[in-house]
Each structure stands twice: as C-alpha cells, then as structure tokens.
C-alpha cells in the first residue's frame, strides 16, 4: 500500500502494535479449532472427551462409529439441500425484482428483508413453535407434526433474506444494457435470459447458495425449537448428547466438515481469480 509507507518514527511503534494486535486476534480465532482437531486424536477416559489422555488414530479409523451422530449429519445435509434450493430460488427472485426493476415500495421491502435477521433467534424459534403446535396455529389451523418439514419451513424463512441480500449485493453493478444489446442483435427473450442474464448473475447465486447451505447445517437455536422430539439434526444431536457423552467422533466429523469447507472456499477463490484474469 502506498499510504503509510512513509511514517514518522512515533507512528512506527503504533503501527507495529496494531499489526501485532491483529496477529493475536487471528491466532485467538484459531485456538478452539486447534483444540477441536487435537482432541479428535484423543483417547478419552470416560464418556466425555474433555481431558487429554493419550494420542490415538482410533477415532479417525472409525469416524462413523457413533451411528446416531452419522444419521444426524445425513439428515442435516438433506435438510440443508432442500432448504438451500427453496431459499435460493425465492431469494434470487426477490433480488432480481429489486435490482432490475423500478418498483414503488422498494424501500419497505428492503426493510422487511432485514427484519428476520435482526430478530433474536429465540423469538423466531419460539414464535414458529407456537405456529406449528396445536391450538395456537391460528392461521394454519391444523396439527403440524414437528419434524423435517417444520425445520425446512423455519430455515427457509431466514435463509431467503440472506440469499436476497447476498445476490442483490453481487448483481447490483452489472451492466443490464447487455440484454438490450442481445435483443437488438435478434436474440429472443428466452435466449437472452439463458445466454446473457443467467451467466451474469450465476456467480452471485452460487455464492448465496453456499452461504445458505452453511447457515442451514450450522443452525441450532431455531431448528432446536421446531425439530420436535424425534427429528435430530447434527447440532441438535450434539446438544442433546452433550449431557451424557461427547464422543471424539464429534471432533473427527467436525474436522472433516472443516476440511471440505476450506477446500470449497479455496477452489471458489482460485476459480474466481482465474476468471477475472481471463476477462
């Protein structure tokens, strides 16, 4: 950076201090991650994996030993797939409507989109629970059994906002006159959409979908309120189980999820920067 390279002596001390502070902050962020990975190699003495005993590869050789945990993870992935799909479609529609068209009432709609994100999760979870259970579900007026359906409904509710806001931010600066150019050159509206519009907005949609997927798998509080006693997602399983046991497989599976996420992030970043270089 050009600014700041020429610094007064007094500023140099401050500069070093601020850099060191930032470095410590980054290290701080990784302390629990280090512990999670380390304890995936622990051979716990009892049912709780909280005290370091001895090093072992056992947990990594049997990562799926805890069947309930694996089932919960699979269920979480399934729910995330469905919720992400629905939320991405609905959220993208909203983003397109807001960015491409001049409509009256655009500002109130922006405000409505932010509301679910600024409402405390316990309030969202509690209110949805009341909607889904018997006497109070005033509008739906039927007995919703708590489970996969109610989890998907609840997650889509807040994911739509995330998707709409992310896609809108990514497609805002795009040059929409390219569509006019395509049509002037004789392309039909359908052809224009698939050959011009979609490629323009696709990176934004993909980024939003990835975010939604990650948020869905990670969601605990809202999901916990509407999951009912028989439907157990990965976070709900960990919470319920943690009263009686924390098997090291939790750490192994988390480390695996972490590695996969980092790989996806890395591939995405490389792909984006390469694309930028070509264009």
């Amino acid at each position, binding site marked *: 950076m*050009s*600014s*700041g390279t020429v610094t007064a002596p*007094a500023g140099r001390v*401050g500069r070093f201090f*601020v*850099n060191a*502070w930032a470095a410590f*902050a980054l290290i701080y*962020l*990784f*302390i*629990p*991650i280090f512990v*999670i990975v380390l304890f995936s190699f622990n051979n716990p003495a009892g049912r709780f994996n*909280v005290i*370091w005993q001895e090093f072992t590869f056992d947990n990594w050789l049997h990562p799926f030993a805890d069947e309930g945990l694996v089932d919960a993870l699979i269920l979480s992935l399934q729910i995330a797939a469905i919720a992400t799909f629905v939320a991405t479609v609905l959220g993208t*529609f*909203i983003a*397109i*409507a807001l960015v*491409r*068209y*001049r409509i009256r009432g655009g500002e109130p709609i922006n*405000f409505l989109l932010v509301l*679910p994100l*600024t*409402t*405390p*999760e*316990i*309030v*969202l*979870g*509690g*209110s*949805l629970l*009341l*909607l889904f259970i*018997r*006497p*109070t579900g005033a509008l739906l007026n039927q007995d919703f059994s708590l489970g996969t359906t109610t989890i998907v409904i609840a997650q889509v*509710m807040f994911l*739509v*906002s995330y998707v709409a806001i992310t896609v809108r931010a990514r497609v805002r600066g795009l040059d929409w*006159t390219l569509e006019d150019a395509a049509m002037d050159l004789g392309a039909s509206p359908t052809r224009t959409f698939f050959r011009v519009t979609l490629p323009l907005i696709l990176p934004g949609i993909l980024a939003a979908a990835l975010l939604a997927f990650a948020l869905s798998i*990670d969601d*605990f509080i809202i999901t*916990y309120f509407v999951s009912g006693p028989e439907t157990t997602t990965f*976070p709900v399983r*960990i919470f319920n189980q*943690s009263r009686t046991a*924390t098997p090291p497989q939790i*750490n192994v599976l988390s480390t695996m*999820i*972490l590695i996969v996420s*980092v790989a996806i*992030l*890395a591939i995405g*970043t490389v792909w984006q920067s390469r694309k930028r270089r070509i264009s």
Partner: protein
Amino acid sequence: MNERDDEGRRRGGVTPWLLLAPGMLWLALFFFVPLWTLFRMSLSERTDRFSDPTFNWEWSNYREAFSQFGDQFFRSFLYGATATLIALLIGYPLAYVIAFRGGRWRNLLLGLVVVPFFTNYLIRTLAWRTILGNESWFVRTAQDIGLLGDEGILRSAPAVIGGLTYNFLPFMVLPIYVAIEKIDPALVDAARDLYSNTWQAFRKIVFPMSLPGVFAGSLLVFIPAAGDFVNAYYLGDVDTTMIGNVVQDQFLVQGNYPVAAALSFVFMGIVMVLVTIYARVLGTEELT
C-alpha cells in the same frame, strides 16, 4: 418497456411483483403470522398444564416476566453489551489491518477470519469448555503463575462473556472490513500532506467513515449474543443464566407458553429500543 433509470433498472409492470410474491408470502406466513401468534399467546391464560391457553387479555404474564426474571434480563443485556465491546476492541484493528495493510494477502486473511466458523457453534463452545476447564493446561498454567485462583474460570460470568465474544466475532470483523475497504487511501494521503499524523488521520478520516461498519457489526454481535443460551449453558452456572435460557426452558421444558411468549416480546421490545437509541447516537439511522 426498455426505458432504464441511472442504475439500469426498468419499469416492469407486473413482472417484479410476480418475482417478489413467493418469497414475500413465505416471509408473511412464517415471520409475521408467528409473531402475531406469539403476541396473542403472551396475553393468554393458562389454567393448568394440560389444557390449551385461551386468549384473555391476560397482562399478568408480562408482570410475571418482569418480576421473576428481571435478573436474567439485566444479565443478558450486560453480557451482550460487554461481549460486543470486547469484540469491537479485538475486531476493529484486525479489520483495519486486513483492509489497509493486507495488500495481495487480503482475501486470504479474510478467509482465515471465516474458516474457524465452518465448525459448528456448539462444538466451538464445547472446545472452550475444554480450554477453560480446571484440568486444562491453560488454566493450570494461569493458576501456577497466580493469574487465576483455585476456583478456576469455568462456570463464571467471564467464561460466558468470553464464549459470546468469540462466537460472534466474525460478525464484527466483516462489516467493519467492508466499510474500511471502501475508503480511498488517497484521502489518508491527503490528510498526511496536510501535516496530520497517523493517529489524527485515523481519528478524523478513517474512523468516522468506518462507523456504518461499526454500527452493523455491533448489532450483528449484540442481538445474537444477548439472546443466546448455549454459552451460558456450557460455560456458566446458575448465577449466569441469561434470558435465552429462561425462554428455552419455559417453551420447551415447562411448556408455559404464555409466560414464554411474554418474555420473548419483552426481550424483542428492549432490543428494538436499544437498537434505535444506538442508531440515533451513531447517526446512522438510514442503515436500519
């Protein structure tokens, strides 16, 4: 049809409304209707454990919420505010360094801020329970050099606040980064040319321009931190119970929906008031 405004948007008749309809309908059905249900429930009367509460303008639920759980309300806002402040102190310099001094490593550094949060938040909190536990190397060392007493740190307010700070820190860093990144370095150079030192340039130019990020980041940390129940559950004890724990217990364990609903409404109300005051103080009302 093809007239466009400055941002390339065009007038579209019904098309945009058709695009908006499904998502907005979902929001109406599963955000606004539940809130209405919650409101009615907060004014309902529960005669006994097994019969359904009936809507009855039963204001006593609110009295009960305040009188019985005042401590938990106070604690939630105290812990949430403290965690937000610490997150700001840790997160602001980090965002500043990445945005202004990150150079070509910027995206990598930003990725490093996010990576820890690809592990589930319960698991991260459980990891803190290990780190702060009385058997941990960290606590033993701190006790040996006299930083910590025999009672350790787990199951205390600092442990809960520490967990809250950690778990929501990226929500502080990212908005501040976005705000600082937008600042033209030429403005800082201009301040230097006019004989300001680094600190003056920061105080007069960078910090005021980063306030929208500070505002957004504080809200994104404060709201989930004040409403959290997981950190208090794993890292605290009976003396650190927050309002989230009470609401969770009233909804899912006691099944006392009217009081649970009243508690939720009071909590949401206080959060909204605090957010409004905060927006006034910071002068960034247009953000909300």
